[in-house]
């Protein structure tokens, strides 16, 4: 990951990735940086069962626009198969098989770019949960972490 960038969006993201709020989450094992390739950032987020959900975030135009996230398979560098999306707790309300599939696998959340773009009223109806340009990547990570509290992650079957 570079120290800084001439791109103002990337430079701001890099600053926020070095913030105390972000690092406390890393050191509390809530999340980690799994990969970085501007404008994409892959975060690994710990679910309630202790397994990790990777989310690939498009951070173009950060922080004016919210990150646009989707579950990601780090091993194959591809979108996470739908049958391995989080289950349990409130995860089905967030990783929605009746909505997310048609919306770039986006989480159904007001902190995410796709959710906000398709539901412009969320910014005013859900201001506490919604992205705005004063938010940081730590806010996005915390919102996803909150929804993963009671979730489990189906694991790939191991070859015999």
């Amino acid at each position, binding site marked *: 990951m570079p120290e800084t960038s001439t791109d103002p969006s990337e430079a701001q993201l890099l600053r926020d990735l070095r913030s105390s*709020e972000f*690092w*406390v989450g890393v*050191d509390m094992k809530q999340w980690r940086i799994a990969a970085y390739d501007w404008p994409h950032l892959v975060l690994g987020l710990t679910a309630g069962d202790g397994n990790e959900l990777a989310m690939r975030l498009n951070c173009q135009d950060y922080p004016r626009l919210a990150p646009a996230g989707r579950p990601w398979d780090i091993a194959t560098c591809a979108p996470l198969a739908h049958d391995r999306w989080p289950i349990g707790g409130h995860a089905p309300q967030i990783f929605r098989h009746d909505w997310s599939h048609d919306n770039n696998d986006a989480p159904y*959340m*007001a902190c995410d770019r796709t959710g906000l773009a398709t539901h412009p009223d969320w910014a005013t109806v*859900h201001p506490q*949960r919604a992205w705005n340009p004063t938010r940081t990547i730590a806010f996005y990570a915390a919102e996803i972490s909150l929804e993963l509290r009671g979730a489990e992650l189906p694991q790939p079957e191991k070859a015999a």
Partner: protein
Amino acid sequence: MRLHRFSAGTGSVITHPEAPPDQPIGQLLDIEDGESAYVVGSDIALDINLTLAQLFPGDVGHLVTHRCRDAKITAVYAGHRARLDVHVATLVSGVLDQAVHDLKIDAATAADLVIRLHGSTEDMVLTNPIGAYLDKRNCQLAVDLVHVVRPQG
């Protein structure tokens, strides 16, 4: 090593990204008269002559400094109140767990709750110590347990 320091009443944290491991914490941190330092999650006051390496076996440490040792928390949920006695180094998540227990909230309901300063609309950070939200000279705090309101439709 990396040191996260939470201070009274700020609700926030300051990170020392490259704190020298062999420096006593009393020299590293500006600890005011009357304040004590605690490892987050522990209730034992630290000897400020100890070094970071002596206090933290890994390469990361979390400290909270506060004048109070114990905090009296009033937790409110759906009109019911519980009074909790916790240490200032207790994680907010621990305060939430204790409030859920004392208010006899079932597990399914509890999984949907966040905790906020009384009257606030911002969630408290579950991994912060409660001392970070306690005013420097006041060892009491009121919090609300609130259901997460998610977009529907």
